[in-house]
């Protein structure tokens, strides 16, 4: 624990829960707030305050579209990826309900996808939940097999928020195109800046984004819909008719401008950030692997380096967390899951024992993660694991006794 002594705040290795906003993003946001700035309501057509705000929103829409490989006209701003996921799933279900009432998704999706699916099941829809392999990867052939004539939507996340694995969404899109009429929704909340997105090229129909996982502000996201390919949703927020009537509500200029800027930075700097983070992630893994009895969740060759999820044998999960958290901000499950406090259903779906799933830590790195924070992470976790194994009498048995 001495590694952390004297430090005012724990090292932050929880960037998959949320990231610090980039100061360049903050600067752009600040320009849209006060009386001297562009504070107008983008819906106030006809006076310069409104027109200027609308221009800023449209410029941001371009930036978001560019980061996703999509057309600007297909971007609908929302309050985050949770709303985007709900809009995609309920919105398509409502729109296409006469065509069929079957959905396909994956056990390792975020709750913002799984909970709407459950709600639809309660209303009589059928949902197939696919299980990825032990490395977290879903074979597109499994999707093809699950498609039925009445399947209207397939929902598969791109970068998994707990283990960082990247699904082959292009392959899944091809499977959907070949076998039936289902649209493909991709939850890409964790993807921006971490790996390339190509909405148009991959033939994706709907995609959810969130700004705050990529050094943008919390409370803003987007649903991208391939309108030129006939994709639509039944709107869920009705009123002012903003966003082509697909999502009413005053557009939050500063939030949208912030998301746009964060996307532009991700486009410009994402590859360099990722390369640097890959080095840090490798150091973290090597440093902790040395403890013995440490398992890496998800195939690193098919994952973004930003998320390193490790299971520690021979230590109990709650004690591991309690020991490291005063010195290190890390998660077990996703931040959302930690509001509820249940063991990671994602790791369980990958076949980890309940015990080992509980003794797992998610380290997640971002643009502002320093080498020093990673070293601190290694020191803190090593000390905790060694101490707890000593107390548990499991020091000598790495590899067998968990």
């Amino acid at each position: 624990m001495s590694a952390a002594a004297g430090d005012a705040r724990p090292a932050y290795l929880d960037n998959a829960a949320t990231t610090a906003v980039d100061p360049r993003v903050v600067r752009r946001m600040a320009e849209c707030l006060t009386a001297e700035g562009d504070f107008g309501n983008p819906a106030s057509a006809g006076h310069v305050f409104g027109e200027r705000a609308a221009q800023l929103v449209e410029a941001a829409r371009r930036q978001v579209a560019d980061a996703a490989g999509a057309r600007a006209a297909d971007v609908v701003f929302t309050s985050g990826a949770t709303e985007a996921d709900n809009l995609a799933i309920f919105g398509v279900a409502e729109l296409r309900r006469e065509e069929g009432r079957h959905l396909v998704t994956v056990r390792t999706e975020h709750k913002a996808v799984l909970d709407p699916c459950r709600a639809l099941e309660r209303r009589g829809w059928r949902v197939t939940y696919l299980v990825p392999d032990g490395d977290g990867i879903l074979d597109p052939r499994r999707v093809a097999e699950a498609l039925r004539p009445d399947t209207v939507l397939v929902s598969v996340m791109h970068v998994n928020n707990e283990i960082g694995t990247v699904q082959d969404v292009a392959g899944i899109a091809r499977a959907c195109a070949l076998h039936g009429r289902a649209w493909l929704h991709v939850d890409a909340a964790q993807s921006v800046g971490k790996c390339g997105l190509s909405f148009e090229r991959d033939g994706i129909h709907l995609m959810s984004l969130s700004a705050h996982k990529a050094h943008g502000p919390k409370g803003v996201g987007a649903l991208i819909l391939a309108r030129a390919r006939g994709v639509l949703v039944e709107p869920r927020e009705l009123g002012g008719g903003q966003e082509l009537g697909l999502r009413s509500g005053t557009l939050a200029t500063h939030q949208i401008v912030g998301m746009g800027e964060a996307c532009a930075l991700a486009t410009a700097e994402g590859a360099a950030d990722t390369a640097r983070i890959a080095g840090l992630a490798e150091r973290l893994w090597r440093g902790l692997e040395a403890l013995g009895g440490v398992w890496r969740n998800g195939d690193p060759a098919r994952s973004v380096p930003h998320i390193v999820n490790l299971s520690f044998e021979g230590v109990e999960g709650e004690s591991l967390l309690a020991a490291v958290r005063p010195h290190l901000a890390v998660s077990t499950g996703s931040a959302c899951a930690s509001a509820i406090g249940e063991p990671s259903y994602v790791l369980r779906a990958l076949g980890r024992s309940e015990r080992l799933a509980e003794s797992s830590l998610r380290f997640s790195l971002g643009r502002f993660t320093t080498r020093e924070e990673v070293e601190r992470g290694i020191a803190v976790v090593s000390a905790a694991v060694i101490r707890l194994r000593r107390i548990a009498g499991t020091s000598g048995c790495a590899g067998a006794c968990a």
Partner: protein
Amino acid sequence: MRLNDATRRYFEDPPCVGELAGPGVCRGAAGSREAGTWVQFDLRLVPGSTDRIECARFLAYGCPHTIAAAAWVAQQAPGRLLRQGFPEDVHRLRERFEAPIEKLGRLLTVEDAWLAAAAAVPA
């Protein structure tokens, strides 16, 4: 997960961790690591006595409350008599460490391990 001061102290720097060996040592354990809570006590009796405890050591795989409670119990051991039973009523122990009620079962595992050790004294 809020730990009170006592829990944090006994969890972060627990006294009496380890095992004992040799004559006059009785060992007992309860729970299982697979189920998430396992506790073992080694009690050494004062040479010649069949009742008075000289010292105790514990091992624990479990949550912070389990570790803290086991450490505290082991610390109370020296000088106690086996027949006095578990050093503290489990409900009092739960209050001492402000463990949530769902954790009562884990504290009972600590008590079970102690009682198993006491029962292991050669009659």
